[in-house]
């Protein structure tokens, strides 16, 4: 299954990831869109403990990344951000995190794990991209992290090229 191209890891049904996968395919890019599965045995327990819904995806996300060994990893939620941080630290390969939220202090603290995972991704050198200037400003204000504002699949494609060069 190793393919070395771009791996998009997103929660099921993420429209941005789906659109991006289509654009990349049209552009002739080797890209694979995968949605890590939740583990029903522990998902309920994690949710009861205040973690992000879908937090159990982390395990399968980590496994998928290991198996696919992508050249570039793009994740779309705080849960997968932790996996991107590990991958980037271990391999040094580029990784991108896109958040479909306004990352204010309140949002960061509304679920256990969010803050730590996003900080881990940033410390590991994962590139953070936000869909709007408001979201990028919120990230800067709440965590002091610079974020690129990227709202089209074409702009992501260009970002990949820059990160890989």
């Amino acid at each position: 299954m190793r393919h070395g191209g771009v791996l998009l890891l997103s929660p099921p049904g993420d429209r941005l990831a789906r659109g991006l996968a289509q654009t990349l395919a049209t552009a002739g890019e080797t890209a694979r869109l995968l949605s890590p599965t939740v583990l029903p045995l522990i998902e309920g327990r994690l949710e009861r403990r205040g973690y992000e819904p879908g937090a159990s995806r982390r395990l399968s996300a980590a496994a998928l990344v290991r198996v696919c060994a992508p050249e570039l990893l793009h994740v779309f939620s705080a849960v997968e951000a932790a996996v991107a941080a590990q991958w980037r630290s271990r391999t040094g390969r580029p990784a991108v995190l896109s958040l479909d939220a306004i990352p204010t202090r309140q949002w960061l603290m509304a679920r256990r794990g969010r803050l730590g995972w996003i900080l881990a991704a940033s410390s590991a050198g994962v590139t953070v991209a936000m869909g709007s200037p408001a979201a990028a400003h919120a990230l800067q204000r709440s965590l002091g992290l610079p974020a690129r504002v990227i709202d089209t699949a074409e702009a992501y494609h260009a970002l990949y090229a820059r990160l890989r060069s």
Partner: protein
Amino acid sequence: MVVATRDRPVRLRWLLNSLEEQSAPARRFQVVVVHDGESAPTQQLLRSHPLSRSGQLECLTASPGRTHPGAMRNLGWHAASAPLILFTDDDCRPAIDWLERALTAAALNPGSVIQGATLPDPDEAVVAETAPWVRTLHVAPPTPWAETCNIAYPRAWLERVGGFDDDMRVGEDTDLWLRVRRAGGRLVPAPDMLCYHAVEEHSLLETVRTAGRWRDLALLARRHPEVRRHLWGRMWWKPEHAAFLSALLGAALAGRSRTAAAALALPWVLGLDRRGYGAHPRALARSLAEAPGRALIDAAELVGLARGSIRYRTLLL
């Protein structure tokens, strides 16, 4: 406002953001942050924060070896020029009208120490409700401990009593207030001067490792025996500690009398639901699962306090 900080850049950022958003006019306050100079992200934050760019934020670096909270706060208030010094901690987030309320209370009670209320941050309720090992603070003023997470001292009092004790690791805030009180000071509660305290989640290992820092509480009890009036049985920092020692005694006696052992262990077992999980079978199972961790924490705190009691020759457990 004086803040002592040590390697908590995210929390410090949220504190500075809330100070920047205060309803009181910017010209009415100055912020002094004292840090230990060891955290690059903290230094970067202090350089780049809008309060710094507007000239309202002064940053000071404590010299090595003088990084206990009291020493850092002393450095801060000496550098400030205001007649009223507000103290808060780097893991707190004042409400938007905090400063306004503090100034009003100070104007109504000139020369008094003003103590505000501190609540666990409601934005972090999920952590408070679900994480097993958390640290936060709830202060309903007036308290005998005069916590520095939310308190205002007239500068004149700080100068008169010489500020905080530079060397105390914990309890330096209570020590300051008790010296001010001895010199004739008055503490006025201001419950609407509100601060939110972070709800910080720690691992069990971290919690156990840091439990020993409370040993200097014995120094506070030695210097100010009157604080014992506020301790459980005049010698227990927490009632759970008495219950834990009783349970240990019960365990030691288990071979001789099971009834006595069970009776001695009962108070600690009944107090296991410290987080208020409830009586649902799943909640009870969780309390039980966390019992070994609770025991470790109680034991670590007791060992720290016992060491402090020996060092300062006064019993506080």
